């Protein structure tokens, strides 16, 4: 008798425990560390340097969020994820957010129950081929062997592109970017396809980047952005507005160099609101007044992050293009801080 009572009690207790879900922000604060899902290593976007410190454009977003919540841009546990493992990692709570060149699509947003908080890079899928192959357009690729990273939207775009152009191809599915490079360089595939930014980053790490061309066709829209789980709006808001703070900072001319000066107070009320000298937007997020100040200070504003990691003066050498501020003809646009 006693045993069955015990089992019954155990069952009830464990069922009750299973259903509770705490707020992500409280979890992060209690842990003192942000678990941020990044790629397994894509130079410029997220890759560890010689000392094991993670650097890159996506990493910059993680650092800004960690700085805003915890006040320390280094209090991050980076979790490398592949195209296959990233969504499971986020859904299961292994990471608090994903900043891993992930394309915002309907099914991921709605069906997979994630929340894309914005776009930090407008990208599109392209092809890279060795110059010696003599290909100038993606339309010439009939019959080619194509290396693709499996578990990504590129796989589907590729199928659609070749199908709609009535061309055949041989897909070679590959798990990580490093393997893709190795297969491509050994000539096991003719072309490599992924997001154009990823191609540029991959090419930059080649011994002779000049021997490879990125074909002019962009065959898809790939808005890449950080994402969080559905259903925790407080956390989602925080990540969203941290990203917006970085974008607005560039628009308003707040840089990591002049931020201390501006934080003393300016004539521009929006700058004051962002930096916490006017009003208290931080309290609405459940943070202090200085949250955005710390986020911007961590790695600089959006433009600075771009130039430092993937801009034209880096080996990756991406132009701003679509990713310029809206005032300069790009698509990068933050809703106002008020």
């Amino acid at each position: 008798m006693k045993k069955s009572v015990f089992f019954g009690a155990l069952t009830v207790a464990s069922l009750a425990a299973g259903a509770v879900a705490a707020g992500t922000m409280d979890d992060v604060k209690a842990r003192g560390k942000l678990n941020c899902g990044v790629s397994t290593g894509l130079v410029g976007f997220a890759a560890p340097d010689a000392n094991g410190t993670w650097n890159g454009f996506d990493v910059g977003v993680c650092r800004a969020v960690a700085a805003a919540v915890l006040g320390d841009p280094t209090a991050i546990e980076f979790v490398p994820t592949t195209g296959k493992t990233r969504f499971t990692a986020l859904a299961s709570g292994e990471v608090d957010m994903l900043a891993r060149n992930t394309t915002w699509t309907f099914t991921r947003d709605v069906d997979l129950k994630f929340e894309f908080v914005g776009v930090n890079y407008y990208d599109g899928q392209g092809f890279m081929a060795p110059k010696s192959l003599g290909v100038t357009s993606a339309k010439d690729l009939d019959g080619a062997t194509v290396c693709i990273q499996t578990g990504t939207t590129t796989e589907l775009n590729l199928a659609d592109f070749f199908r709609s152009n009535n061309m055949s191809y041989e897909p070679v599915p590959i798990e990580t970017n490093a393997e893709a490079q190795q297969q491509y360089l050994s000539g096991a595939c003719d072309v490599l396809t992924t997001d154009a930014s990823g191609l540029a980053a991959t090419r930059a790490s080649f011994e002779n980047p000049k021997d490879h061309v990125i074909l002019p066709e962009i065959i898809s829209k790939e808005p890449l952005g950080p994402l969080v789980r559905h259903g925790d709006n407080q956390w989602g808001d925080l990540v969203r507005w941290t990203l917006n703070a970085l974008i607005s900072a560039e628009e308003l001319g707040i840089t990591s160099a002049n931020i201390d000066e501006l934080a003393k107070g300016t004539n521009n009320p929006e700058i004051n609101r962002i930096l916490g000298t006017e009003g208290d937007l931080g309290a609405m997020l459940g943070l202090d007044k200085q949250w955005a100040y710390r986020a911007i200070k961590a790695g600089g504003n959006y433009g600075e992050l771009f130039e430092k990691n993937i801009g034209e003066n880096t080996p990756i050498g991406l132009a701003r293009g679509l990713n310029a501020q809206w005032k300069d003809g790009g698509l990068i646009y933050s809703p106002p801080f008020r």
Partner: protein
Amino acid sequence: MTTLTDPPKASFRLSMLIYDSRYRSITIQVVALIGFLIGIAWLVNNTLQNLDALGKTIEFGFLKDPSGYDINQRLIEYTSRSTHARAAFVGLLNTLLVAVMGCVLATTIGVFVGVMRLSKNWLVAKVMTVYVETLRNVPVLLWIVFLMAILSETMPKLKDYKTGAANMLFGNSIAITNRGVYVPEPLFSRSLGDVTVLKGIYNDSFYFGVSLDLIAILAVFIGGLLISKLIKRRADVIQAATGDRPATWYLRLGVIVVPTLIVLILLGFHLGFPELKGFNFRGGIHMRNSLVALWIALSLYTAAFIAEIVRAGIMAISKGQTEAAAALGLRANKIMSLVVLPQALRIIFPPLISQYLNLTKNTSLAIAVGYMDITGTLGGITMNQTGRELECVLLLMLIYLVISLSISSVMNWYNERVKLTER
């Protein structure tokens, strides 16, 4: 007259469930069973509740939707417009293909190595020992990746064929490249066509064509075998009656080969050779590096275990058998094939079954080299694109379970037939 009375029956008390040895074991089993069932119910309930909290339900409707991705190696028709279920089916066939090829090659190598390891020739025996010990003591995943790396790094590149730095083998019929091996394919100019079966079921997910050419050839070949058996039986009868055995080998060979050849000629059999066109070789059968690496690695690895099983089986046959056969005047190879191996097979078979099962399950490592088996399609791309992890993994487990159980039931049936009938 004596009267016998039953001993007084003790009335049943609750405490007897624990203190009476007649009931105790049942009590313990019932309690354990209840505990086990509660444990399972808790796991299932917990899963469902957590899925519910995430807003997910378990449903398999996604299998009917178009998959949207392409698969390079497919044994049946498949496009990116086919359903997820069909993608899984393509993957399943790829799994079975490499499993069957692997079992055949592993058995061949395994038996050879196992017998050779018992050789009296010191060098041969030691070489085989080295083979067994290195192969089976390194994880099979490493062998697969290692072979793949060797194939893609050291084989001639495709552009070497274009520039003439590499040449096709055997009169332009076989091309070995770092993308795979291209071999000639059988073609029929007066083909009988295919019969399509299972068309229209579940959004056309499971249909496949059965080649009538193949059926015709097989039918004639098997018919030839049967007739050849009849000829042998007749020869046996004559030998029993007269003591002379008529020479029948040319007849027996003829009834198999000649009709098969005639059918092949009628069907217009010829070989399609691979040709370098555009980016790749076209025509012929393309054995991708992923398939070759996986096949060879799995075979070599499993062969090491099979070799040990074969060696154990042979050594278990008492030496007297060999000596008796030698005394009858049989030569060494005849002793092996007529006396030792048939008896050893009975010992070899049961552990061999579990090696076949291992090999089949190990094919799920295919994803390491991008071979599109069922783990790569259903458990890889489909799972990723639809986000239905639980459903896909449940299906995968079910499918592997069914494959393994089928293999072991077939093998157990065979084992039942060959095992020694003891009286």
